[in-house]
């Protein structure tokens, strides 16, 4: 029998054989401080009250669960869109940054650091730092800074300092390395807000808990609309996996709900230019946890590729490695081209231009049997930040 406990983190920080905290001794005191305090702090009534208040009045939650009529007709299914794109700052990322900055305050930290790829997590972090009046440094790969210029400027307008990661391949994984190095050098007054369900324990669990508000809302919104609290299927895209973890969270122990994760295949899984970790990755350790990652036979981390900067990461969170390994979730790989067409499709059918990350989840509708099913798709973000990519692609 499948129980939720199988998919929740255990006391040692593992999901099945994945997870743990593979960090050097220099980072260990910080990680231990989090491990020893995060459950107690986040379950304080005062913490919950402020978190709920900010999610409601600042972020704009609950986000709607919208029955997409024309999309449903096309697929002969009942398709609901969970509108995380309507969150303040344009994506689900802010659910996590609100939670983590409150945690940082409770731990009496004075400064915040974060990594960012597409800039969405960086913007969400810079936003909550402005909100709380805290100093904010964002590491971003030098290559990504060029690709995502508008988000760089948004972060600067919000008062954050942006530092270019010039090491390695100069993208998200290197920005993550630089943020970890910064934390080693500044261990006492700084909190590192990781942007997805990745990193050493307790980050994957911490971020999943903050994002779990997504499926918490889906449960009661579905009850209101169709009289039962669960769909047949939940679909979400997976970069590191935070929006998917949030959308899956309260259904992990409900085997009647199929969990579908869409990964970025880039130019295709037969091509070297891809980011589909469950298809191309193997077990190893990346950024402090044991998980699946794309690497050479010698254990060097390889550079992924996707048109979507938010999915352009060589690993996935340990919870997803476990969902894949145990067969609890079904993973599909969506190419750049398929995702872009799906993004246009949603725009034309429902008047919603999705983030290109999200477009990968939409495309999954063409890869699995959804006829007559109740389906929830997590619309993790809006497409404003991706207009340049849509324009450059041009086939609309």
């Amino acid at each position, binding site marked *: 029998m499948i129980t939720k406990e199988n998919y929740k983190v255990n006391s040692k920080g593992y999901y099945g054989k994945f997870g743990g905290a593979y960090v050097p001794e220099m980072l260990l005191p910080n990680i231990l401080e989090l491990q020893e305090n995060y459950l107690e702090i986040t379950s304080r009534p005062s913490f919950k009250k402020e978190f709920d208040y900010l999610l409601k009045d600042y972020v704009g939650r609950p986000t709607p669960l919208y029955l997409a009529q024309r999309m449903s007709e096309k697929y002969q299914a009942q398709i609901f869109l969970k509108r995380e794109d309507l969150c303040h700052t344009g994506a689900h990322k802010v659910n996590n940054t609100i939670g983590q900055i409150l945690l940082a305050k409770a731990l009496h930290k004075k400064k915040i650091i974060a990594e960012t790829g597409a800039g969405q997590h960086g913007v969400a972090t810079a936003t909550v730092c402005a909100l709380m009046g805290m100093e904010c440094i964002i590491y971003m790969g030098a290559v990504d800074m060029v690709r995502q210029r508008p988000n760089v400027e948004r972060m600067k307008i919000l008062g954050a300092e942006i530092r270019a990661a010039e090491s390695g391949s100069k993208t998200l994984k290197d920005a993550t*390395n630089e943020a*970890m190095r910064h934390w080693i050098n500044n261990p006492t007054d700084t909190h590192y807000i990781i942007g997805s369900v990745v990193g050493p324990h307790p980050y994957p669990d911490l971020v999943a808990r903050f994002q779990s508000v997504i499926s918490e809302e889906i449960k009661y919104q579905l009850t209101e609309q169709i009289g039962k609290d669960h769909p047949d299927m939940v679909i979400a895209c997976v970069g590191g996996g935070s929006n998917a973890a949030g959308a899956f969270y309260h259904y992990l122990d409900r085997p009647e709900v199929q969990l579908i994760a869409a990964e970025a295949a880039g130019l295709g899984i037969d091509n070297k230019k891809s980011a589909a970790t469950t298809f191309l990755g193997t077990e190893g350790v990346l950024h402090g946890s044991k998980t699946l990652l794309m690497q050479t036979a010698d254990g060097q981390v390889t550079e992924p590729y996707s048109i979507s900067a938010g999915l352009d990461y060589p690993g996935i969170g340990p919870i997803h490695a476990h969902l894949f390994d145990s067969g609890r979730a079904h993973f599909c790989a969506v190419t750049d081209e398929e995702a872009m067409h799906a993004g246009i499709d949603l725009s034309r059918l429902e008047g919603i231009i999705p983030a290109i990350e999200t477009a990968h989840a939409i495309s999954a509708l063409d890869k699995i049997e959804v006829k007559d099913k109740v389906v929830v798709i997590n619309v993790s973000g809006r497409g404003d930040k991706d207009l340049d990519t849509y324009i450059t692609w041009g086939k609309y």
Partner: protein
Amino acid sequence: MNRIDEVFSKKKKGVLNIYFTAGYPKIDDTLRIARALEAAGVDLIEIGIPYSDPIADGPTIQDSSQKALDAGMSLKLLMKQLQDLRKYVKIPVILMGYINPVLQYGFTKFCQDCKGVGIDGVILPDLPMQEYVEMYQQTFEEHGIYNIFLMTPQTSEKRVFQINEASKGFIYMVSSASITGAKQEVSQAQIDYFERIQKMNLSVQRLIGFGISNKETFDNACQYASGAIIGSAFINQLNKDDSDEAITSFVGSIINP
């Protein structure tokens, strides 16, 4: 007796351990540099296994690792290069690297091959003590390989004692809250930390590393521990001049009175 213990049984002060990256500056330099270091009077050698994402390392070692990888360096090749290590090098040799390449190589095979070529100890900064004890300690011990732990100024007293308990050979005492990189001086806060640990009377020898760069910082560190470790400053030297003569004079500048 493990060669590391042999060193400390003979020498209690001023032990010099030098780090360099395998396959750097040129891919075939690994054994040559090890030999040059021994000839110059170094007590222990630490060879870095290059890794694409070395989060505990500063720019100097990041750069040497990346260049070695670009030239085709790998753990497999390193083991091959070290095949004849013990024909030429008598002092202890320690491999330092990150856990992922070792996992891909295969942990048991790694220990077997370390033993085969004559490696005495291993430093894997991102292998946590809990995982080490539960999953790897037995394999290390079966092959007579010492696992060297790190401690830092933030390490709690309780944990320092745990590390002392689990350690063999020596404890790698990270000099400050920082990643690797050459620094010019030792601060008062560092000295306070060195003294605090010194007073704990640990049973295992300590070597101080990170930021040790020249005679002054080396001598200073040696007042509080059995010796010290130099990494980035030696890589900087290799970048300037990697000839055997230059290596001899670099080491001489640190150990000669």
